[in-house]
């Protein structure tokens, strides 16, 4: 097994182990998030702020981008994620962070329910959460 695979495994296990389902940031993050709303013109920013452990997420995101290179575009990813939440960027910006967080959480669960999952280094992740991490990797 090469080093990058081992590193990635370690990162993922740290991330998921510490956060579990809470890989989506807890609502307490909302203050920090709110102050960054102004950055909405940068694609995906409010979404990426929902992830707590950005370093680890970046590693998984990279793995996703390697597996699905055609999604390697921040705008596209952002739109795809928001689309899956039935939102556009304006609506997303208008939502309270807790509400966006809740929607994402539900979407992740639905992904698992409907087998919309991806396998990265053996990890089975919801496609939405994997895309979110890909977005971080691109940012």
């Amino acid at each position, binding site marked *: 097994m090469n080093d990058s695979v081992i590193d990635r495994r370690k990162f993922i296990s740290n991330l998921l182990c510490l956060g579990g389902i*809470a890989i989506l940031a807890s609502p307490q993050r909302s203050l920090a998030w709110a102050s960054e709303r102004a950055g909405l013109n940068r694609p995906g920013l409010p979404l990426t702020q929902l992830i707590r452990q950005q370093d680890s997420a970046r590693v998984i995101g990279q793995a996703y981008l390697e597996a699905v290179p055609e999604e390697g575009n921040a705008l596209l990813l952002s739109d795809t994620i928001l689309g899956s939440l039935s939102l556009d960027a304006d609506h997303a910006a208008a939502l309270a962070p807790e509400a966006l967080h809740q929607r994402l959480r539900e979407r992740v*669960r639905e992904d*698992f329910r409907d087998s919309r999952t991806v396998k990265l280094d053996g990890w089975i992740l919801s496609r939405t959460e994997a895309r979110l991490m890909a977005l971080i990797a691109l940012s």
Partner: protein
Amino acid sequence: MVIDAKTVPENQSIETDICIIGAGAAGIALAKALSTTKHRIAILESGSFDFNQDTQSLYQGKNVGIPYFPLHAARLRFFGGTTNHWGGYCDPFEDFDFVRREGIPHTGWPIQKSDIDPYYSEAADFCRITTKEWKNAYWEEQDKSPAFHFEDQRVDNKIIQITPSTSRHFGSIYREAVTAAENVTTYLNANVTGIVSNEAGRQVSHVEVATLEGNRFTVKSRQFILAAGGIENPRILLLSTKRHRNGLGNQNDLVGRFFMEHPRFTAGRFYPASNKIKLGFYSAHKVNNVQIKGHLVLARKVLEAEQLVDVQMKLTPAYDQKYVDALDAKSGNSLVYMMKSLSHGKAPDEFSKHLSRVVFDIENLPTFAYSKYFKDSLPVHHVELVTRLDAVPNPDSRVLLSASERDQLGQPRVELDWRLSDLDRRSAVRAAEIMAEEFGQNGLGRLQMNISESDREWPADTAGGFHHMGTTRMSDDPKQGVVDKDCKVHGIANLYVAGSSVFTTAGSGSPTLTIVALALRLADHLKKGMASS
């Protein structure tokens, strides 16, 4: 009565009505059930009442397939057989285990669960299982430890009961009952080396017996039952070449084939969302004074829809290393030992050694105490998903005779060529994927798989459950199986097989309860048959 076979004169011919070869779970259950009849019963047991290294080494053999336990360690060769160290896990087979399954080759027994059902209750008594209740709902209601429930019901819970360790060794428990029965004679140190049929080849006339001391004799009987375990049953048939060149019952080259185990391995690691996750239901624990253990299983509807073999998943928590190390701390274990001794009014052995351990390692005691007494609520780091399969019956997975190795009696040793199939792998992969989806959907955590369909090897920790099945499988068709639905060898009028070698499929349960139930059924069959003849 007990006779040491070493004292039987050379070339003597002993006569009996029913001859049972082997005194393990199956042989003892049969002998006990038949001891109430007027028939003379002879048990021919290779070992004595205790373990003996020379006798045990008759079990040596070679693994030539998937790496497996050393064959002389995977079973025991003395009175009581392998139950002298089995784990006591008991659960009956389900209806589903007996039916022909779409997409899974060689499935479908010639009997149904209802044919065995009348015997399960007595078998549970025999296995010292105190509660005949196997329904999950019952146990979940009684149990304080919660079980997982998944909304879309793709994964169910399954309960097994565990025979108390104090009443697990059938050799000790039933020694008195078997040896005191007037019509039962137990020959110890009696190794059956071959089964010989009459000239027409359709009726067994006698078996040949040898001791490690060198004397040989024969036993004639009206009925013979081979109950020497799932690897030795086919070996003895394959060694019986006096009138059948390829071995007795082997006219269709089936003896020894279809060897099945319950393969188990870590298929993945589950990282719970909360390290406070409650897993008590899935570890061995007592409910109403009965020891039980829960497993997760793929629901039948999933098995049918996706054409998978039965998959059971054991959840084994791994705690933070700090607590694992603490549990091993010598200081803590010494303290517990000293307190136990003192509470029994006994001075601890090696008092000063234990005391010095406690004194010099005193700073680790609080973590030890916490880890030991709050074991069920220790922070869980991750959970190993240990998967067990009801493996696909596979004719290439087999017990063979060695071409080069011989035992002390001059007979070819066994070779075990254990194999698994792509369908087994697919079933394990799908089970892990489905578990990952269920954990994710229910907000419980994430799973990392350790197995994939493109793997060529099985996971490094792949092992069996010491369950040796299928090598004289049951089928109505002599071209598909060695014994018929009454466990009688096809084409031979008076030779029966008992034990898990008759299993057509490995089944979802552990084998021994079903071995005993089938042995009791066979005893009934023999009683009826002999009464009418």
